[in-house]
């Protein structure tokens, strides 16, 4: 039984995973994760893939909102930019996917930094409004700039190819998405135990004293917008590959709100929280839909009412979560873990 943390070097005190046990569990989890395509049917795998994309996007938004304290409603727009630039690079220049995805991320990062400029002057809800404006500008641009985006008709994305292997099934794209997602999670984890990430948190907690401590607010706020948008842009690019056809309607404002929901329910300022939130918000509507379709078999005349109920239950669950666990699922996970760590001598 573990009775405490004993470290003999600073390096071991700064590792991500505290014990060998945690590493073994993680290894097992990864094995389980990557064997999913073997036995999970296509439709469910599609949901799993969407969760993977949501994880990348939610971490991106959490970097900006949860860790740096800059509220953004521009997530759907950033995602759209990532998706359309990925599609454009793929169709017009015939670039392979492993260049398209990072380039789409970089283009989005550049745009995100541009949108982030007002954050130097405005905070909180006002910044949310400014990013909301960015959303509608992007939406307008996508509809009107037909030569690049294909306008209302949309853009069909060439399937990614690795040599002669075409990544076009749910199974193959699963590996693409989750390899990117794992890199994204590790990068974010490392980011927040080194200089740049800590500067972000300092800006969130106390901008004035962060500046006095030598943090260049201009540089780091824009950097946060850049990194966050890079993540969201990559998520958008993956979404494009998964959807195969994208149009302006693929990225409504509700996506931005869903992502805010993910990080709030999962836990602001927590990487693990972003993952939980992404799973919860993506899975919940699917579970409710399965539930209602199962029920509608026995109550055929209630089918319309059950569909409406689904939305209600979704909203209710979110509210209940916020009341009983305002710090998000990540903090609940921590308290459960701490309880079992010293069980049965928890006091």
């Amino acid at each position, binding site marked *: 039984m573990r009775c405490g943390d004993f470290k003999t070097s600073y*390096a071991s005190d700064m590792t991500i995973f505290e014990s060998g046990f945690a590493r073994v569990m993680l290894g097992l989890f990864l094995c389980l994760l990557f064997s999913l395509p073997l036995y999970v049917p296509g439709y469910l795998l599609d949901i799993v893939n969407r969760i993977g994309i949501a994880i990348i996007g939610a971490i991106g938004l959490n970097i900006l909102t949860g860790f740096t304290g800059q509220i953004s409603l521009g997530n759907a727009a950033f995602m759209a930019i990532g998706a359309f630039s990925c599609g454009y690079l793929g169709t017009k220049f015939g670039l392979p996917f492993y260049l398209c995805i990072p380039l789409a991320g970089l283009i989005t990062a550049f745009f995100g930094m541009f949108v982030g400029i007002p954050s130097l002057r405005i905070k909180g809800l006002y910044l949310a409004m400014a990013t909301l404006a960015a959303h509608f500008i992007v939406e307008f641009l996508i509809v009107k700039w037909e030569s690049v985006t294909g306008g209302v008709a949309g853009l069909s994305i060439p399937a990614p190819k690795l040599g002669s292997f075409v990544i076009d099934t749910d199974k193959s794209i699963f590996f693409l998405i989750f390899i990117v997602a794992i890199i994204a999670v590790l990068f974010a984890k*490392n980011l927040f135990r*080194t200089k740049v990430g*800590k*500067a972000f948190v300092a800006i969130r*907690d106390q901008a004035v*004293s*962060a500046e006095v*401590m030598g943090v260049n*607010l201009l540089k780091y706020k824009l950097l946060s917008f850049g990194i966050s948008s890079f993540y969201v842009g990559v998520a958008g690019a993956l979404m494009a590959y998964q959807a195969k056809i994208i149009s302006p309607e693929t990225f409504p404002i509700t996506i931005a709100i869903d992502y805010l929901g993910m990080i709030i329910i999962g836990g602001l300022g927590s990487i693990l929280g972003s993952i939980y939130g992404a799973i919860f918000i993506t899975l919940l509507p699917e579970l409710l839909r399965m539930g209602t379709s199962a029920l509608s078999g026995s109550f055929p005349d209630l089918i319309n009412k059950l569909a409406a109920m689904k939305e209600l239950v979704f909203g209710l669950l979110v509210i209940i979560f916020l009341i009983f666990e305002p710090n998000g699922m990540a903090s609940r996970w921590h308290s459960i873990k701490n309880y079992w760590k010293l069980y049965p001598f928890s006091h």
Partner: protein
Amino acid sequence: MVQLSCSDIQLNFGGVRALSGVSFEVQQGEVFSIIGPNGAGKSSMLNCISGLYHPQQGTVIYENQDVTRLPPYERTKRGMARSFQNIALFKGMSVIDNLMIGRHLHQHSGLISGGFYYGPAQAEETRHRKYCEEIIEFLEIQSIRKAIVGTLAYGFQKRVELARALALEPRLLLLDEPMAGMNHEETEDMVRFILETNEARGITIIMIEHDMGVVMDISNTVCVLDFGKKIAGGTPEEVQQDPHVIKAYLGEEDPEEP
């Protein structure tokens, strides 16, 4: 040697004149106190030195360089550090992370190397962690190094704020009321830490403080402000005898009254 020299500082907020024509010099390695009644402009003066306010007139010369127009982080780069009157720690971070922010300017690993945490970035992180641990030991806060700052008691928070400022490796330390709201024991500890900082580390200290006993005991030079003007300056003994100071603190004797 003069380390910091402020000359003819004038600071206005709209029509309100917070500071008018304040000048003083701080010698390398001394403890310099700024005192004065409430609203005398002490904190404004400190903000002018650290760069949060930019005076309309006058110059701040730090180590032979005009820093009057430089933003705060540029002054921090040149070796200034400060604490705040109403604790401005990063409340959501642990004590050690607060100190690591102090190492921000000394660390060079960027976004990519930090994000992938390969060799040099990790070595750098460990090296700076070690430096922070030395400060933690110096200020006797080992037991709370992993605690989230927002959950700590007031006296500890004050101490952590001093620790964070020391993590910057400053040559000039500005302290805004380091002893405010502390009990006797905590004040004694704080005085000990400030003196050790000054003597063992050779850091020049500029301090605003209301506890006159402390000020008169540990300062080499005292500067007295009242209504935005400097009314006296010199050694603690000189200042105590100064009629302007007595007037500002105790009021004037009315000759008409019997």
